[in-house]
């Protein structure tokens, strides 16, 4: 990750990569090198605020998703309580149903909570599948070039330029041909989103690979005689995926919106298979006009918040990984001086002796501590 930073910052801030080294020399735990943690450390001010807000939101929804069975008082398709008493329909929020019930008698709170789980699973399915396929295709296409590349690019561009929701709808109809059980429903939605995102990963990875293919370290691997397979797996794969976290978060939020859109248009997951916010919103449209606000507001706000959270994280990561978009604290205590970044090898123990035929050359150069030479120039 820090390599990514060094590469990024080199053209804009002079000497920044040397600073990177400096930072490395002050030992840090493995933990702080993890993408998000690292960014969290460098963020300041509003930027930090936005990142933290995003992380809190994401974490919150993740926890809700994981502990849904504990948090939700009822099941997502439960319409009778333990005594066999049917829930009231469209009941206003009350002690039993803190966020009220829907037209079908579902508990809004429970469905909203279970919905988080569906959303998270859908994201994971969609993003994992599309990353896997997209990265693979991008790698192959970018490295080999040729007509396979050209064809893939045209296809990817065609698919990419096609409104994603439409494609997702088509895929949803096609995939949901089979029966839609719990997982089948989630998977079919997830997969229909996948199709939309493969081209995005493909494009990103391919661009990165094409750029890197010409770079010195890939060329040096070629000079060495490394096989194509080795170059792709050892050298290209890891290095080309550094931009993924950002796209990943941004795509996750789009995945949620697509899932909700599918649900809203009635191509999504069945209510008895899982709770899905878009579907709930669809069902609550007529409630809203009848003054029954609680069935729409909660799932709606849940969508907004989870997308907000993910997008905040994604955008912050994006800004923080681009030095031009990153702010730093504006003043503070000086922790190091320029000495630490000197590239003059004379102070380094391993320095080799230099001997020129030039008789003037001062052969010994191991002294010259900088500190006591300050202001020397003033006399002139």
């Amino acid at each position: 990750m820090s390599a990514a930073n060094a590469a990024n910052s080199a053209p804009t801030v002079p000497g920044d990569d040397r600073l990177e080294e400096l930072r490395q020399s002050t030992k840090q735990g493995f933990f702080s090198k993890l993408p998000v943690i690292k960014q969290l450390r460098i963020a300041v001010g509003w930027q930090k605020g936005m990142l933290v807000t995003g992380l809190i939101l994401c974490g919150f929804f993740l926890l809700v998703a994981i502990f849904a069975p504990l948090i939700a008082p009822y099941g997502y398709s439960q319409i009778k309580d333990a005594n066999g008493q049917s829930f009231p329909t469209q009941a206003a929020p009350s002690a039993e149903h803190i966020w009220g019930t829907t037209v079908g008698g579902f508990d809004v709170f429970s469905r909203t909570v279970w919905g988080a789980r569906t959303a998270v699973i859908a994201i994971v399915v969609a993003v994992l599948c599309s990353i896997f396929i997209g990265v693979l295709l991008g790698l192959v296409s970018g490295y080999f070039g040729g007509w396979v590349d050209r064809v893939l690019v045209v296809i990817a561009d065609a698919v990419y330029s096609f409104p994603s929701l439409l494609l997702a709808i088509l895929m949803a109809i096609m995939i949901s041909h089979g029966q839609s059980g719990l997982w089948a429903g989630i998977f079919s939605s997830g997969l229909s989103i996948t199709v939309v995102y493969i081209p995005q990963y493909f494009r990103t990875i391919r661009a990165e690979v094409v750029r890197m293919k010409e770079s010195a370290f890939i060329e040096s691997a070629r000079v060495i005689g490394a096989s194509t397979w080795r170059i792709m797996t050892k050298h290209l794969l890891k290095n080309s995926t550094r931009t993924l976290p950002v796209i990943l978060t941004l795509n996750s939020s789009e995945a949620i919106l697509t899932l909700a859109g599918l649900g809203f248009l009635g191509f999504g997951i069945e209510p008895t298979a899982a709770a899905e916010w878009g579907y709930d919103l669809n069902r609550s449209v007529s409630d809203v006009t009848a003054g029954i606000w609680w069935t729409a507001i909660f799932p709606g706000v849940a969508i907004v918040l989870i997308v907000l959270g993910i997008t905040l994280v994604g955008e912050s990561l994006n800004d923080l990984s681009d030095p031009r978009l990153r702010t730093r604290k504006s003043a503070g205590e000086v922790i190091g001086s320029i000495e630490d970044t000197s590239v003059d090898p004379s102070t380094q123990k391993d320095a080799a002796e230099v001997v020129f035929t030039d008789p003037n050359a001062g052969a010994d150069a191991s002294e010259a501590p900088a500190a006591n030479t300050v202001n020397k120039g003033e006399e002139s």
Partner: protein
Amino acid sequence: MEAKATAEADASPIKAKPSETKPKKNRISSGFFKFVVVRFLLIIPTIFILVTIVFFVMRATGDPITAALGGRLTPEELQARIHQAGYDRPLIVQYAEYLGDLLHGDLGTTLTDNQPVTTILTRYGAATFELALLALIVALIVGIGLGRIAARRRDHAPDAAIRTFAILCYATPVFFLGLLLKLIFSIWLDWLPSSGRSSLASEMQFGRLVSPTGFYIIDALQLGEPAVLLDVLQHAILPALALGLLTAGVFIRLVRTNVISTYTSGYVEAARSRGVSEKRLLSKHAWKPALIPIITVMGMQIALMLAGAVLTETTFEWKGLGFMLSTYLKARDFVAVQGIVILIAIIVSVVNFIVDVISALIDPRVRY
């Protein structure tokens, strides 16, 4: 153009120094036209691929006869009708046939309501176009305005507020936003109509037009009735706002990032070192170079806008292509869906093409 350029050179042989390799001043050279033509031809494979994908996917989604009469006729009768319509022939034959028709410019007639697809496209295309245009205006005003403010006040409170607003625009599904807007403006305040493109009365008025354009604003002007125009505008506000804000969210971000990155570039710093004021740096020196990536992404955004239009149009019953598309999809009317998809593909490709040409024109570095 080439001929003209040489003629110019001949006419002014003032300093005909043959010394250096002199770059042509006139950038619109034959090379540029070659670029335009090649770029234009690239549209064809894109459309071909989309048509192919949609054709096969649509066939895998079922047939319109079952969709319409499945719960009504006996399976034998259904099968007979499917056979009569030829939907049970090998797919590849149907595909070849469809492509053949397509090459003759024949998009076919819809299966579910027997209308020529071209009619559907012109009639509903106008509606979508109107909505997209209005939304684009909203998006551009909000997006560029706020985006530039955010870039200038970067990392201060206004920036954070604008960015959060942008994300919220983007994070709120258009149908939820639509619901809220309807709730507020048509139910509580009762200011604006909740759906449709015009009231029934205006609709009837449009019937009087000899040559309706399908753009209701233009049609209302044609009619010359202020009441109709007002009615049409009132209907357009909410959908345009919903779709426009959705897009504006993306635009804000786009403008902000790109302006910041040009604003911190070498040439802006150099201009600053020559005493150019900050205001001018932002409005000229940083803005125009930022425009190139902005325009490129905005082109892409138009595709997303069409996708957004499906949801917006359904939410507000704006009877445009997106609305019809979801209707025809439900009816498994593959001819209609394919027709609309082709049109969308063409629009998207053409927009991207135009965007490429425009950015080639703006960006003097791109030489052909």
